């Protein structure tokens, strides 16, 4: 069992084409899915814990739990849509195959995050500050996402149709993933905060936060509470 698990993990990292071939051959995907879930928990969990090292304490456990959870929640919501898009655009892949493909891609991204974890820990330990920590984590997510794309592209095909499916899936994944992560924040934790909440209070959506940040970037700072008051009149 362990040898098979390590073999699948090795395959996820070294040969996305082999993973895609398993799915195309309609093999039993249960070992692949179990290995992918373990990789996701280990990789994203460790990276989450590392991100929380600047804040420390209970935030370490919270982030280690919440980062894999954010990925899983996003996949639960998006995978049926991925399967429908792929079938609708003419790819012969069933829901089980799409689960295997998406989880494999997420697992590969998580293993890439795990590889980044020591370097990120070192940088955070040097005290780069909250905002640079957020930026650094975003860069790591970007690299991990690119490595995940390779699995998806191998499974969906590297032709025009595959690219179309990939773009449609991205249009579903990006807002859903952003909102899921937004609801489960904080992952890093502000050092100035006296207590660490598992979840922050609902302060609008991810889109509201982007809108608010757009104002902040040009020097017009508005608190979340004030924005909420302005928009609801309460």
């Amino acid at each position, binding site marked *: 069992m362990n040898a098979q698990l390590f073999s699948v993990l090795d395959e996820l990292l070294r040969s996305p*084409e082999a993973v895609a071939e398993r799915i195309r051959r309609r093999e039993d995907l249960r070992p692949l899915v179990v290995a992918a879930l373990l990789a996701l928990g280990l990789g994203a969990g460790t990276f989450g814990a590392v991100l929380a090292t600047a804040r420390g304490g209970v935030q370490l456990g919270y982030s280690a739990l919440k980062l894999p959870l954010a990925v899983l929640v996003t996949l639960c*919501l998006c995978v049926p849509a991925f399967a429908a898009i792929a079938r609708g655009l003419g790819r012969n892949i069933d*829901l089980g195959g799409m689960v295997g493909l998406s989880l494999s891609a997420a697992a590969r991204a998580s293993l890439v995050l795990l590889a980044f974890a020591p370097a990120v820990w070192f940088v955070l330990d040097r005290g780069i500050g909250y905002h640079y920590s957020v930026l650094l984590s975003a860069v790591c997510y970007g690299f991990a996402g690119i490595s995940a794309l390779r699995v998806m592209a191998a499974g969906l095909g590297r032709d025009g149709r595959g690219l179309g499916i990939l773009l449609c899936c991205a249009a579903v994944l990006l807002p859903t993933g952003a909102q899921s992560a937004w609801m489960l924040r904080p992952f890093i934790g502000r050092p100035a905060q006296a207590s660490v909440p598992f979840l922050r209070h609902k302060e609008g959506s991810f889109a509201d936060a982007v809108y608010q940040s757009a104002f902040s970037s040009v020097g017009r700072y508005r608190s979340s509470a004030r924005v909420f008051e302005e928009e609801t009149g309460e």
Partner: protein
Amino acid sequence: MTLSDLLVLYGAAGVASSAVAYKKSSERGRSALVSALLALPLWPLWLPVVLSAHARPITRPAPSDTTRAAIWEAHEAVVGSALEPLLPREAALRMLQEVERASERHRELVQLLAQRSFSAQAAEQRIEQLTRDGSSARSLAPARLHLENVRRLENLRSRDEQTLSELGELATTLRTQLVLARYAGSTPHDAGDIVSEVWARVEVLGSTLDPLPSIQPDPRHASDQAHPASG
């Protein structure tokens, strides 16, 4: 509907999925329990995998699938051994892709050539009829070109059929050779040659068909075959 309602519904679906996953497990015991426990919180991801694994039909694979299975098993036989460079993963994957592409093309050609509009016999009859009717060479030229195209498609189909058949035999031999070498712990002297043979057939599948010698126009109507714009 509040978040609590949603969580209750999710939990209820999880319990039902868990029962389904346990029931669908082929063997009872630890693996069935793990499957059921996974389905409880992760039913949107785990249940489709369990159901699709269970619903997978056990049918005899098509000849091309047998070839692909043999290639992959040959590769798996050498993974982690000193023989792996003979058939590394990338090479096996490329072979599989080429075989799949050629099999798909072959299937399409068979379907296409079964239609009357792609029948060589019908095309020949049409030319005979046009000739009997005293049609000009210009009228005959498209019909002759059609016949030539159909014959080229037939040649392509025959070549793919033969190559796929040879490849199937070679892949089966390669698999047994490498499995034997793995269990016997010996170096297969002939495996390298068979791999080269397989590659040669794969290259044939990926190559284009040489053009047939073109059908010579009737010299009596040579002048009629000039481009209309020329006079």
